[in-house]
């Protein structure tokens, strides 16, 4: 009997329903395509777009008329330390203003000045005030505008709890995708001419040291690799320096970080040493995000961390009234977004808190061109799941605008492609073979549990592939991850119920995560220099002679191949600045 119970047909399948995906679906609909907008979780309640609090950088030039897309382009190229794809960056900065106006027309709000122009704020890495925002909840406005607009379009079908698992490719062309309907536990065959991958980052590889949503397990990265697409810049993961690690209730809370840079917070290791003096004796705790994160990670990984794997952040040396006055200003009653420090047993007037860097944004991802094409016909990708805009490091506020620009392009191009093509029929044998693999963990009666594999991988990623790297550790990490990946083909899921089977879902996620984690470790091993978010203790300098290249990853059978591709300096050369 066939393992496929349900078949559906569409022109465009968008995988991921948030900032990128919803925008893509709207544009595909503008071009007349029947569109499915799929989310592993809930539309408007998954991914990280809605979590983004503040900055969305766009060169409107409303605060400073000297600003324009070319200036934004330059800052983005330099912020990415010349590894970004300059053609993509130009498309991005030129289209961003119009895309934000689209979003406004869908119903998103932004803070405006009295003359009706956008309030624009200067962010680090930008030379002009460029960030538009809505209070401290910009991402929620994205959600509101996009949900409104999708709701107005009956030809966009929203599929929730719909976990897309694999792509079907027939002679180099997309013919469909396989998904797990989490509610019923049925495998679904989606026959489609075009697929847009819009699933965001992969910060779950570092959990619990992640401030992002649990949905981001690298599924699309792995699907793209298996389908024959290329990934790049995987060695670059951006960390947010100070998130809480204890108590568990407050794990990942990052707003507390402002105690460091705004309220004179001091950082100590377990021996009570203000360790920043070893890393940046001049600026100490006020050093740059990169350096502070790296210093903290070094202390933790080398065994000088706190009981729960952080370092101490302390403002208790200040008078209680100073701390209270600061708190009253930014988190009244020691409470923020419903998290109350005092109720959770944390009194920052008396005690230091335990903090560690948190994985926050993935610069690396699927290789695309200006049309969001991946090299496989009918397969497109956009948003954080791709690489190219941010190079070796993302400057603040560039993600929210990027996802609108490329979401729209992917939607248009995919719809036009699907409209012109005769659909190719998915190959039955391929479908059955893939389904059997997806069902295997459920049908197996003995084998390994995914928990251990996932935890081990996350621990390896944090300690050896995180902020502080060296060749020896990366070799070991890559080998260990290969072995975990091999073991993951023997995962057995204890819960045999089909409906709402979280264990099955997480087991399949773990397989994806392990493939991407290994690709990341091997990419980091390959790049023998320090640049942007990639720090090699054994190669502590930036090396423009050899490493102005992108590291690229592909999959051949079960083997990951890591190579390099040249960077084209289409508009700006490193020697020009």
């Amino acid at each position, binding site marked *: 009997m066939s393992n496929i119970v349900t078949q559906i047909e569409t022109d465009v399948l968008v995988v991921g329903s948030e900032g990128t995906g919803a925008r893509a679906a709207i544009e595909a609909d503008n071009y007349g395509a029947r569109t499915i907008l799929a989310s592993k*979780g*809930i539309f*408007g*309640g*998954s*991914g*990280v777009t*809605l*979590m983004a609090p503040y900055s969305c950088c766009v060169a409107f030039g409303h605060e400073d008329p000297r600003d324009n897309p070319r200036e934004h382009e330059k800052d983005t190229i330099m912020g990415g330390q010349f590894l970004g794809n300059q053609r993509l960056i130009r498309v991005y900065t030129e289209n961003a203003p119009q895309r934000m106006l689209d979003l406004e027309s869908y119903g998103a709000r932004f803070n405006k000045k009295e003359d009706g122009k956008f309030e624009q704020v200067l962010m680090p890495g930008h030379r002009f005030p460029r960030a538009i925002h809505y209070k401290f909840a910009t*991402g*929620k406005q994205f959600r509101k505008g996009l949900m409104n607009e999708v709701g107005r379009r009956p030809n966009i079908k929203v599929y*929730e709890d719909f976990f897309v698992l694999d792509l079907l490719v027939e002679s180099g062309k997309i013919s469909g995708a396989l998904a797990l309907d989490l*509610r019923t536990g049925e495998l679904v065959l989606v026959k489609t001419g075009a697929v847009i991958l819009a699933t965001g980052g992969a910060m779950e590889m570092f959990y619990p040291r992640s*401030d992002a*949503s*649990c*949905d981001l397990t690298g599924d699309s990265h792995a699907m793209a690799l298996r389908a024959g697409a290329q990934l790049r810049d995987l060695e670059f993961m951006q960390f947010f320096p100070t998130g809480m690690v*204890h*108590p*568990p*209730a*407050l*794990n*990942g*809370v990052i707003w507390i970080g402002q105690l460091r840079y705004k309220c004179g917070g001091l950082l100590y290791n377990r021996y009570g040493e203000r360790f920043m003096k070893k890393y940046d004796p001049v600026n100490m705790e006020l050093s740059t995000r990169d350096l502070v994160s790296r210093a903290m990670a070094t202390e933790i990984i080398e065994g000088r961390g706190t009981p729960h794997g952080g370092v101490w952040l302390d403002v208790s040396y200040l008078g209680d009234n100073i701390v209270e006055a600061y708190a009253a200003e930014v988190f009244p009653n020691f409470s923020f*977004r*419903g*998290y109350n420090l005092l*109720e*959770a*047993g944390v009194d920052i007037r008396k005690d230091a808190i335990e903090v560690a860097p948190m994985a926050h944004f993935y610069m690396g991802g699927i290789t695309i061109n200006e049309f969001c094409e991946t090299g496989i016909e009918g397969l497109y990708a956009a948003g954080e799941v791709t690489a190219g805009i941010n190079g070796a490091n993302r400057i603040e506020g560039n993600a929210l605008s990027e996802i609108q620009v490329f979401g729209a392009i992917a939607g248009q191009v995919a719809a036009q492609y699907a409209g012109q093509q005769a659909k190719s029929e998915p190959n039955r044998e391929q479908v059955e073979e893939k389904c059997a693999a997806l069902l295997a963990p459920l049908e197996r009666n003995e084998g390994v549990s995914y*928990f251990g594999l996932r935890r081990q991988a996350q621990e390896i990623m944090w300690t050896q592939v995180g902020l502080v790297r060296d060749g020896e550790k990366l070799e070991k990490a890559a080998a260990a991850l290969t072995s975990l990946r091999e073991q993951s083909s023997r995962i057995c*899921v*204890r*819960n045999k*119920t089909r*409906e*709402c*089977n*979280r*264990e099955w879902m997480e087991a399949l996620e773990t397989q994806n995560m392990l493939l991407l984690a290994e690709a990341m470790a091997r990419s980091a091993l390959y790049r023998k220099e320090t640049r942007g978010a990639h720090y090699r203790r054994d190669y502590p300098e930036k090396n423009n002679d050899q490493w102005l290249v992108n590291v690229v990853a592909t999959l051949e059978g079960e083997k990951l191949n890591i190579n390099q591709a040249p960077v084209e300096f289409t508009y700006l050369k490193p020697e020009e600045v």
Partner: protein
Amino acid sequence: MSEQALAKVKIYRYNPKVDREPYYDEYDGIPFEGRTVLDVLKYVYEKHDTSLAFRYSCRGGLCNVCLLMLNGKNVMSCKKLAEKEMIIEPAKNKKVIKDLMVDLSEKVEAGV
């Protein structure tokens, strides 16, 4: 904080596909101090029963999908601190898909 304090938890279970009616599972000795209700569910899921169905995403009080009922009141489980005695049930007025997983297509705003 004493390390020993442990909670007693009663969790609503129901799979409309197979169960004639809902029932409750009870667990004793669950660590709860400094943890959220969601932390407790993850603990029960991992240590006791991987068939427990529940939702979460952002873990940061923003997405609202971890909504459920604790001791009779709707709360966001990722920000509500766990208590010593807890009855955990699906969110009020929502159709149960399985256990604590409900149909969220009618959006509700967070109460807590």
